[in-house]
């Protein structure tokens, strides 16, 4: 069996499910199948895709980052407030700043995990509250609203280049970078070795803690990027931005076949997992499901997807038997 065939099977399964989902929604509301609507759904899922990719690296190294959504809120608030007070700072600088700040917040998580050996779930459970609280302290609970933001700040992610908004292009770029990184550079492979078997990684000269640290920094950096994208897309920054989004991000990874036990995950799978949730999020309002049913449906869909995924991925046992004939000589 070729190395990728297993992975491909799992991913094509998910891909087919997504297609079927889209077509089913299209049957109910043909409008959903228009290019504009589908591209819109993709654009809407960009942030989830980016965050899920960052989260994937963290999960692959046997950690988890529950602080991403709080990180998004904090960096988003910082750039929004900066933009409100100093509208002359150009967007690229703010973008850079958001990513730096995000990476810094990720670094705090990473340092605690790496240097102190505190379990990642504990660290990020803690920093999740701390970062979210910091947004409140920073803003004193006040909102930053559209009219306080500069035109460039709001326009940047929506500018359309070659049929797609910049936001979608950013997501596509991140996906591409991740694909190349995890396939063609040692930097990317190390996440999988370190998470797959920490002891073996240590024996092969990989510093597992350092790799985990890097995963947290990247996850933080992407969260910072999304912090800007989020506040600019919705043209508002407040304390509760992206509240509870961390669970969606983790769910996207898991549906995409990233193993919570570490070591397993692919960029394609992860993107498909995010798209799966994105399609559901975008489809439910369109097909006019009662709002009271939406939560139950998405919960059930997540469970079914995860179960189906686990079936698809269940590895076949090896086969010893070659000669099922009885040639036993009693002596």
């Amino acid at each position, binding site marked *: *069996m*070729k*190395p990728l065939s*297993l992975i491909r099977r799992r991913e094509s399964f998910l891909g087919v499910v997504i297609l079927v989902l889209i077509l089913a929604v299209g049957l109910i509301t043909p409008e959903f199948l228009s290019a504009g609507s589908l591209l819109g759904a993709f654009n809407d899922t960009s942030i989830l895709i980016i965050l899920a990719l960052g989260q994937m690296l963290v999960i692959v190294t046997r950690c988890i980052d529950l602080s991403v959504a709080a990180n998004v809120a904090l960096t988003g608030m910082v750039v929004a407030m900066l933009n409100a007070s100093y509208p002359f700072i150009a967007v690229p600088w703010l973008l850079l700043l958001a990513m730096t700040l995000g990476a810094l917040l990720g670094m705090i998580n990473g340092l605690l995990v790496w240097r102190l050996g505190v379990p990642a779930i504990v660290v990020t459970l803690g920093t999740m509250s701390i970062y979210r609280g910091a947004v409140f302290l920073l803003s004193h609970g006040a909102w930053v609203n559209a009219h306080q933001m500069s035109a460039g700040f709001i326009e940047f992610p929506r500018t359309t280049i070659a049929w797609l908004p910049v936001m979608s292009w950013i997501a596509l770029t991140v996906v591409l970078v991740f694909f190349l990184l995890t*396939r*063609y*550079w*040692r930097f990317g*492979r190390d996440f*999988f*070795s370190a998470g*797959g*078997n920490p*002891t*073996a*990684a*240590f*024996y*092969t*000269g*990989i510093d597992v803690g350092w790799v985990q640290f890097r995963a947290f920094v990247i996850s933080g950096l992407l969260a910072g990027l999304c912090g800007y994208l989020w506040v600019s897309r919705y043209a508002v920054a407040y304390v509760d931005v992206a509240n509870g989004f961390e669970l969606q991000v983790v769910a996207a990874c898991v549906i995409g076949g990233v193993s919570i036990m570490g*070591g*397993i995950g692919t960029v394609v799978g992860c993107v498909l997992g995010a798209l799966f949730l994105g399609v559901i999020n975008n489809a439910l309002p369109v097909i006019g499901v009662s709002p009271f049913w939406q939560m139950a449906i998405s919960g059930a869909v997540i469970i079914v997807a995860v179960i189906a995924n686990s079936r698809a991925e269940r*590895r076949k*046992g*090896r*086969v*010893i*038997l*070659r*000669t*099922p*004939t*009885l*040639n*036993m*000589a*009693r*002596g």
Partner: protein
Amino acid sequence: MQRDQAVLSLRNLTKTFPGVKALDGVKLDLYPGEVTALVGENGAGKSTLVKTITGIYQPDGGDIYVCGQPVVIQTPEQARQLGITVIHQETVLFDELSVAENIFAGNYLTKGLLKRLDWPQMYQRSGEILAQIDAPIDPQTPLKELSIAQKHMVAIARALSVDARVVILDEPTAALSYHEIEELYRIIERLKQSSKAVMFITHKFDEIFAVADRYVVYRDGSFVGEGLISNVREEELVEMMVARSIKDTYPKQTVDIGAPVMEVENFCHPSEFTNISFDVHAGEILGFYGLVGSGRTEVMQALYGLSKAATGRIMIDGSQTRFHSPAEAIAAGLVYVPEERQQQGVVLNLPIFQNISLPQLSRLNRWGFLNEQSEYELAREYGERLNVKAASWSQEVGNLSGGNQQKVVIGKWLATQPKVIILDEPTKGIDIASKAAVHRFMSELVAEGLAVIMVSSELPEILGMADRIIVMHEGVMVKHFHRSEANAQKIVSAATGGKAA
């Protein structure tokens, strides 16, 4: 041979773990073109030494010289750069990654200024290395799809992928079978030819005398002696190792064989084995021999209730049963001492006494409330019977040496007072003294009327201990010998499907 200049020398090396002095001022010299066997009991510090040389542990004191130059090895990376490569005792590989990546992990082949990974070349190189060691494995296969023996071959390929001056093999043969071991001897011979220094750690003395040029003996973390293999006899080595003589490694007693205790009829599994039928009598040791991967473990685990897909009939003491979980098997008097001690056999972080009482908590503790006194009593009884060396009965099993861990596992199962005990590779990786203890104990067990099924890949053990021998090949029972009619040649021939007769 250039004996004057050692490639790798250790002087006065010391390494302490909390509570244990694993290495106490030991010395070691490895010479190019020579194989040095490092021998010692379980816990003598052999693996610790290996890990210290390869930068996994930092020594507390002492010096390391490579070609006469003092060096400090802080990371495995540095060790590799110094030309030291290891096949570790436990396979430390990545299940989810491809074979090629396992071979090159941490030392990828790259191309271009950007150090892009060069997959085609890695696939090709690993294919070449695997072909060299006669292990026809597709480099693109995920490692998890390989058998344990194949994984070991990958570990060996990994070690050979580095252009090394020193090759260290820490018990490489424990999981290998006949064929692969022969292959390994050939590899070692080739390494010698290309004047690499080889260090070989094993508990099997036939191997030492087959491949080694020199020996070094450690005991309890201290250096005991060294010399040329040609100048030493096996008994002398053993005596250096354990500071006493061991008279009989296979103390087989003659016992009256009683009535059949367990009968298995037409046991089948869709993909692993078929038509397994045998019986085992009270007072009998029934040996299962086969190459690694011949499906013996599979059969035993299925008997023990671990396989959902298996079908067939089991009779214990005349009543027919079929087990759906180990708990049922234990209740019926069938117990299984698994092959993978650390993963399946013991709970490393629990104390000895809690490990021993684990399978029979409900029998031991009335109303479900713990009664530690009765647990201690049980631990004391069986721990002492098996001579477990421990600081106390509430010491964590993880802190014991491999052999003592194995004794705890066996003790745990004996304490349930079973009718039939299955021992899967009971002496894998344990030293000669502990091995003798285990064998002696098996003899005592059958003398008490227990039925023993022993799965083993070691010919001397099978020949020495078993009353009857069943040989398996590719999931099928191919031959059945009585003790009197068995010999090494017949058994190996049967196990290889008649090819290596």
